[in-house]
C-alpha cells in the first residue's frame, strides 16, 4: 500500500488518534482546461448496461463512473483513494466500524437530493440476490450480508442511517479493503424511485449523481451523455457532451480517427496496425501509454500429475521465454515475474523470480522423475494473439521435453474447463486474465490464488490452496489502520513471494495500455490511461478547440 493512500496516510494517522479521519480539499480544476465542446468515442460492442449494480466490463466501467458516484473514489489518473460523495470518514480503532459523513446538497440527475437513505438502499439492492449483481460478493464483510444473500433479509443489518448525512457500517471482521469497496461501481448510489420506475431496465435509463447525465440511447448505434450542470464538484466536467458510437470495428475506428471524425477509438489500436501507427511520429505523438492492473499468466493444475510436483512447476517457470512472448505482441506488455502488476501496492521491486534457463529447467524435470518430459494440454482462448502466444509457450515447453497440445477454444469454454478440477492441466490466461477490481493487493489473491477460488466454477485454475497463506491473507486484511499500510503491503509481498516458491503460475507479462486520441484532446496523459476509470476519465478530459 506504499503508493496507495500516500496523500491521505499522514492525515489519516493523525486523525485516527483523534478518532476522526478527515480528508483533503477537492482537486483543483485544471487551469488550462476550457469548458465546453463535445467528443466522440467509438466501441465495437453494444454497451451492455449502465446499471452500476450490474455493469462489469471495461467498456461500461468508466461510463458508469461518470454517471454515478460512490462514497469513495480515486484521484484522477491515480490509484490514490479519496472521499467522493463522502466528505469525511471515521474508522473505529477495532477496524470494524466505518462512519461516513456525506456531502450536503448533492443532487441526483432528477433533481432530488441524495441522502444516507439512498446509500443504504443502493447497498441493500446490490446485495439482494434478485438484483443478480456480479458484484454482490464484494460486500461480504458487512454485517448481515449472508442473510441478505440467502434471501432471509431484505436489508443489511450492518448499515445504519444515523442521520440524513451520516451512515455507519458495521463489519463482521476488520477489512482493510473496505474503502476500496466503497469506491467500486457496485457501491455507487442510485435513487430508489428511478430504479422502481424502470425495474429491470434501469440500466437503460440510468439516473445518478455523476458528472454527466444520461441523454440518449439508440440501441446498437449511440449512447450520449450530457454535462450535469448541478454536479457537486464545481468546475467539472469540462465537456458538454460525450457521444459513444457503437458497432465500429477497431480498424474502422482508427481510419476515422486519422480523418479527424472521432476523438478516441475506445477499443484501442488494432494489433495489425500497431506498428504502422507507432512508426509514424505524428500519430505516435497522440498515443498515450500506461500500465494497468493486469497480469497474464499460465496456470498449472496443482491437483493433476505431474503438476502436483512443485519441481515440475518450477521447471515450467524457467522454460518460458517471456521476452519473446512480449515481442510477439509488439512489446505491448512488460515481462512479469510475480502475480502482482508493478503499479499495484505490494509489488516487490527486489524480487527476481525464476530466470529463463532451459538447462536448469531440464535438470529440475529430471529430478522430478521426468528426464524425457511428458505429454500435457495447454488451453487458450481462440482470439488473436492468444493462439500465437500459446504456440510460443508450446515451443518453449518442447525445448525442455514437455509436449503440450493446444486446446484453442472460445472464452466461455476455457473458463468452464478451468473451473473443473479435472478440466485443464495448463491454461494460458490471455483474454481472460485478471484485471484488478480495485488497486489493492488482496484483489489478486482470494478468487484466483486462494482456497476460496479453488472450487468448481471458480477462477483459481491452478486449484492451488494453501491454508497457511489464506490465514496470512486474512491477517493482512485485518490491518485497517491506514498508518500501517506499508506494513500490510509487506505482508502481501511475502504472501506472493511464497506463492512463487510453490509456483502454481508462470506470470508471463503485464499488459500496457495504449490509448490514441485526436489532436484536440487535452488533459494530463494519465487521464487517458486511468488505472480505475478504465479506459478514460471522461470527467476530467477536455478539448482545446472550444472558443
Amino acid at each position, binding site marked *: 500500500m506504499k503508493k496507495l493512500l500516500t496523500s491521505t496516510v499522514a492525515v489519516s494517522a493523525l486523525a485516527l488518534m483523534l478518532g476522526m479521519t478527515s480528508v483533503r480539499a477537492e482537486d483543483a480544476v485544471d487551469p488550462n482546461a476550457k469548458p465546453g465542446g463535445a467528443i466522440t468515442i467509438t466501441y465495437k460492442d453494444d454497451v451492455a448496461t449502465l446499471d452500476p449494480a450490474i455493469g462489469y466490463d471495461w467498456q461500461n466501467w468508466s461510463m458508469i463512473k461518470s454517471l454515478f458516484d460512490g462514497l469513495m473514489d480515486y484521484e484522477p489518473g491515480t490509484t490514490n483513494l479519496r472521499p467522493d460523495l463522502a466528505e469525511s470518514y471515521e474508522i473505529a480503532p477495532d477496524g470494524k466500524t466505518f462512519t461516513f459523513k456525506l456531502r450536503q446538497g448533492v443532487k441526483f440527475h432528477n433533481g432530488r437530493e441524495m441522502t444516507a437513505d439512498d446509500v443504504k438502499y443502493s447497498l441493500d439492492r446490490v446485495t439482494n440476490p434478485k438484483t443478480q449483481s456480479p458484484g454482490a460478493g464484494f460486500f461480504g464483510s458487512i454485517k448481515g450480508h449472508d442473510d441478505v*444473500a440467502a434471501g432471509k433479509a431484505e436489508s443489511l443489518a450492518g448499515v445504519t442511517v444515523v442521520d440524513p448525512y451520516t451512515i455507519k457500517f458495521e463489519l463482521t471482521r476488520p477489512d482493510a479493503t473496505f474503502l476500496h469497496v466503497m469506491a467500486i461501481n457496485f457501491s455507487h448510489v442510485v435513487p430508489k424511485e428511478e430504479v422502481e420506475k424502470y425495474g429491470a431496465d434501469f*440500466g437503460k435509463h440510468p439516473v445518478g449523481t455523476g458528472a454527466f447525465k444520461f441523454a440518449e440511447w439508440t440501441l446498437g448505434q449511440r449512447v450520449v451523455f450530457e454535462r450535469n450542470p448541478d454536479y457537486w464538484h464545481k468546475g467539472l466536467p469540462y465537456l458538454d457532451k460525450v457521444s459513444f458510437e457503437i458497432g*465500429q*470495428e477497431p480498424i*474502422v475506428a482508427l481510419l476515422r480517427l486519422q480523418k479527424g471524425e472521432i476523438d478516441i477509438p475506445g477499443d484501442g489500436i488494432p494489433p495489425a496496425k500497431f506498428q504502422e501507427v507507432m512508426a509514424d511520429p505524428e500519430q505516435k505523438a497522440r498515443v498515450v501509454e500506461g500500465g494497468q492492473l493486469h497480469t497474464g499468466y499460465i496456470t498449472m493444475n496443482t491437483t493433476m500429475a505431474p503438476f502436483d510436483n512443485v519441481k515440475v512447476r518450477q521447471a515450467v517457470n524457467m522454460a518460458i521465454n517471456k521476452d519473446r512472448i512480449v515481442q510477439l505482441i509488439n512489446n505491448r506488455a512488460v515481462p512479469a515475474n510475480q502475480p502482482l502488476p508493478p503499479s499495484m501496492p505490494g509489488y516487490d521491486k527486489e524480487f527476481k523470480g525464476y530466470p529463463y534457463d532451459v538447462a536448469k529447467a531440464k535438470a529440475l524435470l529430471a529430478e522430478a522423475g521426468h528426464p524425457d518430459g511428458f505429454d500435457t494440454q495447454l488451453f487458450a482462448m481462440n482470439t488473436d494473439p492468444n493462439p500465437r502466444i500459446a504456440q510460443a509457450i508450446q515451443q518453449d515447453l518442447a525445448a525442455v521435453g514437455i509436449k503440450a497440445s493446444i486446446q484453442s477454444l472460445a472464452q466461455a469454454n476455457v473458463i*468452464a474447463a478451468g473451473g473443473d478440477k479435472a478440466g485443464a492441466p495448463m491454461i494460458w490466461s490471455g483474454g481472460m486474465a485478471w484485471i484488478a477490481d480495485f488497486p489493492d493487493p488482496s484483489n489478486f489473491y482470494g478468487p484466483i490464488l486462494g482456497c476460496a477460488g479453488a472450487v468448481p*466454477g471458480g477462477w483459481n485454475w491452478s486449484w492451488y490452496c494453501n491454508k497457511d497463506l489464506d490465514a496470512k491473507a486474512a491477517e493482512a486484511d485485518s490491518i485497517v489502520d491506514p498508518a500501517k499500510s506499508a506494513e500490510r503491503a509487506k505482508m502481501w509481498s511475502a504472501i506472493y513471494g511464497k506463492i512463487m516458491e510453490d509456483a502454481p503460475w508462470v506470470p508471463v507479462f503485464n499488459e500496457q495500455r495504449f490509448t490514441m486520441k485526436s489532436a484536440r484532446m487535452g488533459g494530463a496523459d494519465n487521464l487517458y490511461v486511468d488505472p480505475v476509470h478504465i479506459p478514460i476519465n471522461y470527467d476530467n478530459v477536455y478539448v482545446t478547440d472550444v472558443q
Partner: protein
Amino acid sequence: MIAYLGRRVIQSLLILLGVSLITFALLYLLPADPVRQIAGRSATPETVENIRRQLGLDQPFIIQYWHYLTSLLSGDLGRSYIQRSEVTELIVSRLPASLLLMVGAILCELAIGLTMGLLAAVRRGTATDQTLMVASFVGVSAPQFVVGLLLLYVFAVRLGWFPIGGYGTWRHLVLPSLTMGILGAGWYARMMRSSMIDVLRQDYMRTARAKGLARGAIIFRHALPNAILPVIAMIGIDIGIFMGGIVVVESVFGWPGIGQLAWQAIQRVDIPIIMGVTLVSAFAIVLGNLLADTVAPFIDPRIKLR
C-alpha cells in the same frame, strides 16, 4: 392451391420448431455456464445457485425448452444475459436497419447481376462473356469481409466518396449494400445468363428474328421479360444467403442490424440473443422460400403447385 399452401405453412412451422429445438439443444450443450457469466468472478457458490434458480436454468432440458416455447408463443424471447434487455426489444430496434440493407443489397445485386448476365448471354462465347463469368465467379467466391474492407479502403478512405462505416444517410448505405450485392450479383449473373440463353434458343425468338425485328427490340421486348421472371423469383431463396451475409457485412461497416447483434452475442455467448436472432433469421428464410414457391407458378405457368 389452398391445400398446397396449408401444407407448406404446416411444413414451415415444423421446420421452425426443428430449428428452435436444435439451436436450443446446441446452446444447452455448450460447456459454458451462463450463470457463471452473470454472477461474475467474485460470486459465492450460493449466489450462483440462486441466480440459476431464478433463471430456471436448474430445470431439466425438456422443461427449459418447454418454457422457452410457451413464452415464444406469446412473443417473449427472454432477456439477454449480458445486456439484461428484452431480446424482442433488441431485435425489433435493429430490424429496420437490416431490412434497409436487404433492400439496398437486392437492388445492387439485381442491377449488377442482371446486367452482367444479359450481356454475357447476348455475347455468348466471346471474350466479354468469359470475362463477365470469371468476374461473377470471383464475386461469388470472394469473402465478404475482404470485399467490404477493400471497398471501404478505396471508396471511403482513399477517395472519400462515402463515410467510413456507420448508419444514417443513403451514403452510409451504398458500400454495405454493394458488398452484399457483389456476392448475390455473381449468382444472378449466372442464372440470368443461362435463363437468357434458354429463351434465346426458343422458337419464338427465331420467329422474331425471321420477322426482321431489330436486335434491341428482340432482346429487350421479347427475350428479357421472359428470361428475367424466373430469376426474380429467386429473390425469396436469396434471403438465406442474405441472412448469412449480414453477420459479416454489418460488423465490417458498423451497421446496426441484427447481424451485428448476432455476432456480438456469439462472442459473448449471450444465449437468449443467439436463440432469438437464429429464430428470426430462420423465419425470414422459411418465409422467403414459401413466397418464392408460391409466386413461381404465376411467373412461369409451366410450374404447377400440387
